[in-house]
Each structure stands twice: as structure tokens, then as C-alpha cells.
């Protein structure tokens, strides 16, 4: 556990000391704040549904920027060799990087809770839907961070890691659009793999354990791929 704490401390320090995380958080909050204000003044409904969908769309682009350097940079700089020849488990290296990446994304999402506070002060929002929306965003973020980490584990080039992660994330987001062209059996499979289809119930205030299970499963699968990529040397 001590070794894991050391790895996590190092990852957190590396992420928060670099300007990238703060720029990404700033851009995310700027766009979200603009959208929240505009929609609130135009619609005058105490709801965050549109904010949840916009946040999800931005996460598809932003999370790979946060995760791209996590392992790719270690591989490029050669420090991965130093790390993996120390008495450290690969799983601890991957988990520490995953948690550090998640902390940035959760901070980013958490800061948008100020919108819910504003709605609470000036209106009567449906709190259940807001809690479910935030839970959905956290679960989606978990899947995206682990996918980004897996992409970063497979290459020493940060740009390639980011492009691959964005590509996979967008494909999984909208894979249900292919369903209409497919036979019945496959149609269901493609819809069940869609991040959008899994996220929509959360954003609209309906929580299903099957959707939560999907996000947890994809997170575990991507983390496993990242660990195997480190172990395959």
C-alpha cells in the first residue's frame, strides 16, 4: 500500500504541476459556463439535462488530452524502465495513473455543481435527476479515462495515444447509429455498446444498474488492457 501511495502522490503531483490539466479545466468550465448561462436565460427551466449532454460531449475530446501522456511519456522518456525495474506491481502503476487522471476529471465535473446550486437558489430543480446526471458523468469519465490510459499504454507517442483514444471514444459514443443498418441480433449488441445509449438514462434522471455495470465493466476491461500492455515486454 505504501508503494501505491508513493506512485499516486507522484502522479498527482505530475498532473497538477503541469499546465495542461489547468488549461483543460479552464477551457471546459468556460464552455460549460457559457452554455449554462445562455440556456438558462433562453429557456428559464431549472434543469441541467443539456449541461450533462454537453459535458459528456466535451469529455470525449478532453479526457484523451489528460490521459495521453500518462504512460506514453514514461515510455518515450525511458522512465518506464526505471519504474518497472523497481519493486512495483504493474497493476499499481496503472491504478495510480487511473486515479490521478480521474481526480482531474472529477474536479472538472465537480466544479460544474455550482450550476446546480444556482438552480437551487433561484428555482426548484428536480434533485434526483441532477444526482443521477452527475453519477452518469462520473461513470462515463471512468470509462473514458481508462480507455485513454489503455491507448497511452500501447504507444510512446502522446499524439497517437490521444488520437486513438478520441477515435475509440467517439466510435463507442455513437456506435448505436450503425444499429439501424444491421440485422436484429447485432442491432441489440451495437446499441448495448453505445456510450450515448448508456449515458442518456442517467442524464434524464433514470438510473439502471445494467448501465452502471456497463461503465464499470468497460473501465475494468480497459485497465486490464493497459496492465497487459505494460506486462508484455
Amino acid at each position, binding site marked *: 500500500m505504501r508503494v501505491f501511495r508513493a506512485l499516486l502522490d507522484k502522479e498527482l503531483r505530475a498532473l497538477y*504541476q*503541469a499546465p495542461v490539466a489547468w488549461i483543460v479545466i479552464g477551457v471546459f468550465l468556460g464552455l460549460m459556463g457559457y452554455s449554462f448561462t445562455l440556456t438558462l436565460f433562453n429557456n428559464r427551466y431549472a434543469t441541467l439535462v443539456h449541461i450533462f449532454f454537453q459535458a459528456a460531449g466535451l469529455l470525449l475530446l478532453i479526457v484523451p488530452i489528460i490521459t495521453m501522456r500518462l504512460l506514453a511519456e514514461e515510455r518515450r*522518456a525511458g522512465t518506464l*524502465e526505471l519504474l518497472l*525495474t523497481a*519493486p512495483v506491481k504493474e497493476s499499481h502503476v496503472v491504478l495510480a495513473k487511473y486515479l490521478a487522471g480521474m481526480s482531474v476529471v472529477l474536479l472538472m465535473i465537480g466544479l460544474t455543481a455550482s450550476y446546480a446550486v444556482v438552480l437551487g437558489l433561484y428555482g426548484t430543480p428536480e434533485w434526483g435527476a441532477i444526482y443521477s446526471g452527475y453519477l452518469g458523468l462520473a461513470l462515463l469519465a471512468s470509462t473514458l479515462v481508462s480507455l485513454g490510459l489503455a491507448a497511452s499504454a500501447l504507444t510512446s507517442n502522446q499524439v497517437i495515444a490521444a488520437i486513438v483514444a478520441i477515435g475509440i471514444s467517439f466510435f463507442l459514443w455513437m456506435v448505436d447509429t450503425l444499429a439501424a443498418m444491421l440485422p436484429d441480433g447485432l442491432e441489440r449488441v451495437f446499441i448495448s455498446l453505445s456510450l450515448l445509449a448508456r449515458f442518456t438514462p442517467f442524464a434524464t434522471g433514470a438510473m439502471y444498474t445494467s448501465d452502471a455495470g456497463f461503465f464499470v465493466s468497460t473501465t475494468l476491461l480497459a485497465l486490464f488492457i493497459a496492465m497487459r500492455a505494460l506486462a508484455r*515486454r
Partner: protein
Amino acid sequence: MADSAAAPVVRVEHLSKHYGARRAVSDVSFDMRPGEVMGLLGPNGSGKSTILRILTGYLQPSSGSAQVCGMDVVSRSLEARRCVGYVPEDVPLYAQMRVHEFLTFMGRLRGLEGAGCARAIEEVFERLSFGQFRGQLIGKLSRGYRQRVAIAQALLGRPKLLVLDEPTNGLDPRQIIEVRELIRALAGDMAILVTSHILVEIERVAHRVAILLDGRLLGVHALADARMGLEELFLSLTEGEPR
């Protein structure tokens, strides 16, 4: 000097490593005793670094076995790695970290905490005489001092085996002499496995030398007992080999 009666710190038996069809290491066997300095000598691409990477748990062998401190580097990798301090060839370090921060991090990875970690770091600062750079960013250090930082992290936790991959690469003459003196000073406390493609580097520091060519071990020789110099020995062993 090496204790010939003691159990070997390193035991390598019929070790091979293939990358697809390419053979990097082929059927290599040797062992090392506590306190011994052993040189792995061979031209670039002869398999020296691959052997070190297998011993340090970074690579897995294709066949054969390697043990460090009696522990197999594959099946008991974590325990074996606790016995090893490793300085890779290109001295990869976290450039954005300060020297003390980096050593604390590496110490914690080796299970050192609090006062014990601080004491171990002070010890290596003293041993390598570079305590004045503790607050410096690693990325701003010269190659020679980065090499010292890399050696310092390898010495944390007093490993039984120190593995140095081309430790004098890129150093100026004074720094090369300092590294040689350091290796001599550390010998006895721990076994040291050092690679080089430069004959004189090995001749100056090693008790025994293993000569590699194209991944094959041509022979292991005690330098004190050798009737000929290392240069003649190398030429006699590689005579007739394809270049």
C-alpha cells in the same frame, strides 16, 4: 573481493531471448558471487543490455532461467527486484523532479519511509558527494550529475546486486574516473554487474569478464588469472567470428 564459498547472487542458466526471428541472447549461462564485480563485454548489439533487462525483471526470457538472490526473476519477480539496484544506459530520470524529491520517490518504491528514507538519501548524497544539488531540478543537471542521481537511486535500500548499463557513456574523463572509483569502492558491499563495449572500462573495474558476441557467451574469465590482457583475450575469443 568475491566470496567464492557464498551462494551466488546471480545465477543465469541457458538464458535465451528472441524478438520474433531475431536472436538477441542465445543459451547464456554464468553466475556471480557476493562482492564480485563482473563485466559484460561485447560490441553494440551483442545482447548485454538484454541480459541486464532480464535480470532486472524488465524483460522476460524466451527460455532458460535467471535468479537473483536465489529468486527466479520471472516467478518471483517482485522479490528479485527488491535485491537489485539498476542504472539503465540512457539514464532515464524524471526531469521535472528535484533531486531530493526523486530520491524520496524511488526510496518509497523500495519500501523506505520517513526517517529511514531520509537517512538512506543522506547516505547516498555523502557517498556520491553531490548533496549540494539536492534542490536542483534533474532536467537542469549535467550528464555527469544525472548519472550520479541515477546511481544514487539504485543504491537506496542497499541492494545486493548493482546493475550498471554502460555507466561511463557520455561522461567526460574526470567523471569516468569517478565512476570507476565508485565501482571499486562499492565492490565488496554488493555484487556489481557492469556492461561496456570498451575494453579498458571493464579491465579497470571487473574481477571477471563475460565476453558476448551476437548474443552468445564466448567465455567467462577471471582477469587476475588471465595470462594475457583483456585485449588479446577478446581478440583470441572472437577470432574467426563474423564481423
